């Protein structure tokens, strides 16, 4: 059994701890801060998930956990990396990596600027997800481990940048973090 096969036989340059990034010998996980499907800390995820991760972040994270639960040797990358996930743009552990991906999405200036501002809310321990739907809306998912559990902020920015829908944010106990700005 070749334990390095899922890292493209190159464990120095690549990592693929759960065998989810590609068939052996094909396409190992890049080591550039971009997460294909595995880099979210499963302990963080499992510690706080259930209530609030509903969109892209939830789908990507869900796939990761599903993959972890399966026998890694039998997981097909094609099963894990669906077209949906690829179109989503992926998840990133640094703002720089997310912004590089943003630059490649071909957005209008106003939408790109709005998305960039949302990315700027990330801290050093935030995972950033980017996704674009068929209508051209871009969703930025910020997932961060807080002291009381996972925090999530998802901002969907319209193509003209004039509307934003924010879905938020539950702690480990499933308590809603978002508050009504009525005061």
């Amino acid at each position, binding site marked *: 059994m070749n334990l390095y096969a899922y890292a493209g036989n190159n464990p120095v340059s690549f990592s693929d701890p759960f065998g989810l990034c590609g068939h052996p010998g094909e396409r190992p996980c890049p080591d550039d801060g971009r997460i294909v499907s595995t880099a979210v800390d499963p302990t963080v995820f499992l510690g706080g998930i259930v209530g609030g991760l509903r969109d892209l972040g939830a789908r990507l994270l869900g796939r990761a956990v599903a993959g972890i639960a399966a026998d890694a040797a039998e997981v097909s990358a094609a099963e894990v990396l669906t077209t949906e996930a690829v179109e989503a743009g992926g998840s990133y552990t640094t703002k720089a990596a997310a912004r590089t991906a943003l630059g490649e999405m071909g957005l209008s200036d106003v939408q790109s600027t709005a998305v960039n501002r949302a990315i700027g809310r990330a801290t050093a321990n935030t995972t950033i997800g980017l996704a674009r739907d068929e209508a051209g809306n871009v969703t930025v998912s910020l997932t961060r481990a807080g002291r009381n559990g996972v925090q999530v902020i998802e901002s969907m*920015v319209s193509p003209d940048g*004039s*509307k934003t*829908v*924010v879905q*938020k944010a539950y*702690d480990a106990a499933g308590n809603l973090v978002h*508050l*009504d700005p*009525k005061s």
Partner: protein
Amino acid sequence: MRDQPEEMVRACIRGTRPWADLRAVGIELKTTGSILNVENPHNVVATATPTDVAEGFVRLASDPDRLREWASMLLEGSSFIDLKLEGQAYGEALLNGLWEASAGEPLRESAVLAARELFSLS
């Protein structure tokens, strides 16, 4: 005299006005359950400096509910607030403080000290 839209947003960022006042400058904030809809048809965007954020922290520190609401809106209001904290002194500490405050968590000491330091300098 009518407030300039950007100044109104900055007043909210500094904690001197409530977010609901943004309606006067065309920014609608509507909450339904866990969803916040922000309509900003005039694309009003105000820059928030570390000093602005520090002032908000200091002003609202004694009111946990308002602090939490304020911090949540700073994080969620990316369509009308340009947080200029990256690469700034105390920027990361303030950003961590916003996340913690928005979750109702106790602020770490570094955020409190950063806010006091910056606000005292302003």
